[in-house]
């Protein structure tokens, strides 16, 4: 399963443009400051917004093509999407929220176990913690057995401890998911921890300069200890074509 993206969309203040290929069993982290067009990109991939031009292909299937006049609606793209804030259906219990998305009900129990939320299966979203809600949101997104998983800053509303736990859970489960994962975040450390490929975005476009500036700033702020050198220890380096690729599995702790 490979997601090929080449899109552009004019927003009020900037143009979002990206061209990349996201392979299976791989997490592509898109990192950049607020307002850089990351969420717009995720929404275009999910079918919630229409690009002005370009193509989006998932394997052989075209989801969007401005030239061919194709735009597959969100309902038929079969992606899993986890939003920044918790968007579980408030009138349903956790289990029913997951069943809501599942075509195979047996998947629900497995997901509840994997994400460690079996004990809250009968509770409604308003009566559980933020971390539990986001775990349930992951279950819901995966219950549909998606062809791609899209994550829009899924951990940004969580406290540091819960965020860490969920980041490591994602690291653990991503190896078992035979689909491309696209993870949008403004947190560089999270991107380097989770991403197999990291794409920096600024003002709607890929921006290796932004990434280098951020790494350098962090490097200076921590008196040369973190995270610039660790990034290098992890094998992160700028590639031709503006991408930053981590070549081994070591992460920043």
């Amino acid at each position, binding site marked *: 399963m490979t997601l090929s993206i080449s899109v552009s969309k004019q927003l009020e203040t900037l143009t979002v443009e990206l061209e990349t290929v996201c392979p299976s069993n791989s997490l592509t982290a898109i990192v950049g400051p607020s307002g850089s067009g990351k969420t717009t990109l995720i929404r275009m991939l*999910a079918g919630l917004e229409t690009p002005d031009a370009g193509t989006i292909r998932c394997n052989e299937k075209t989801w969007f093509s401005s030239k061919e006049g194709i735009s597959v*609606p969100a*309902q038929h793209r079969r992606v899993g999407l986890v*939003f920044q804030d918790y968007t579980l*259906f*408030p*009138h349903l219990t956790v289990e029913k929220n997951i069943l809501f998305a599942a075509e195979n009900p047996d998947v629900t129990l497995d997901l509840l176990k994997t994400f460690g939320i079996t004990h809250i299966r009968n509770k409604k979203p308003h009566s559980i913690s933020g971390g539990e809600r986001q775990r349930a949101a992951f279950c819901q997104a995966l219950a*549909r057995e998606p062809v791609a998983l899209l994550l829009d800053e899924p951990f940004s509303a969580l406290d540091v401890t819960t965020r860490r736990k969920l980041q490591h859970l994602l690291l653990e489960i991503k190896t078992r998911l035979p689909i491309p994962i696209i993870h949008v975040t403004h947190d560089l450390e999270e991107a380097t921890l989770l991403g197999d490929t990291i794409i920096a975005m600024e003002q709607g476009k890929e921006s290796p300069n932004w990434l280098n500036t951020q790494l350098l700033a962090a490097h200076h702020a921590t008196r040369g200890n973190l995270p610039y050198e660790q990034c290098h220890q992890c094998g992160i380096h700028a590639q031709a074509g503006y991408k930053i690729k981590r070549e081994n599995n070591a992460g920043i702790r």
Partner: protein
Amino acid sequence: MTLEPLLLSAKLAFCTMVLIPLLAFPPAYFLAFGKCRGKSILDALITLPMVIPPTVLGFGLLVVMTPTGAVGSTWQSLTGDRLIFSFTGILFASLVFNLPFAVQPLRASFEKLDKRLLESAAVLGLSPFQTFYRVVLPNCVSGIVASSILVFAHSLGEFGVILMVGGSIPGKTQVASIAIFEAVEALRYEDALYMSAALVPVCFVFLLIINAVNGRQRS
């Protein structure tokens, strides 16, 4: 005093309350979530019965509901019955008159709904219709209840429109408000008092329920 006008008012209010969601849901949904230029025109059209005098609305309805009018002739060719001066006729008028009272609370309730839930439903594969009954309706129950109760209470007090379209045929179109008016005109103050005394607490209780529902929605 006869109970017939009170029972007829209750029957009219109940039928209006049950049937009006069929008419009110589509425009309320469109006004809340639609994105096109015609929205403000539709909004004004639906709100019109709220601001024009009931007699004007009643006259307009009378014109279209007579056997030679567009609605009346269609109805007569379908059923063989006349629409004006019948219970069905005053029910039709009541539905038109109450439409803004049903649409506005529903619209407000839909607008309060987190739009991301709709997007989430779309990404999970639900069609717009499935999203409506599996996500929107369950999360707007209090708005629907408030809208229904408002329509019921408002229907109980209808006068001008019903009088224009239905006249005052006892047992058929003579609802409580018309019976009270006629009792006063005939100097039967005692009858008017009893019917009024029966209507006021009912409306009061229904308004209390609306307040409770709105309070719950706010919290």
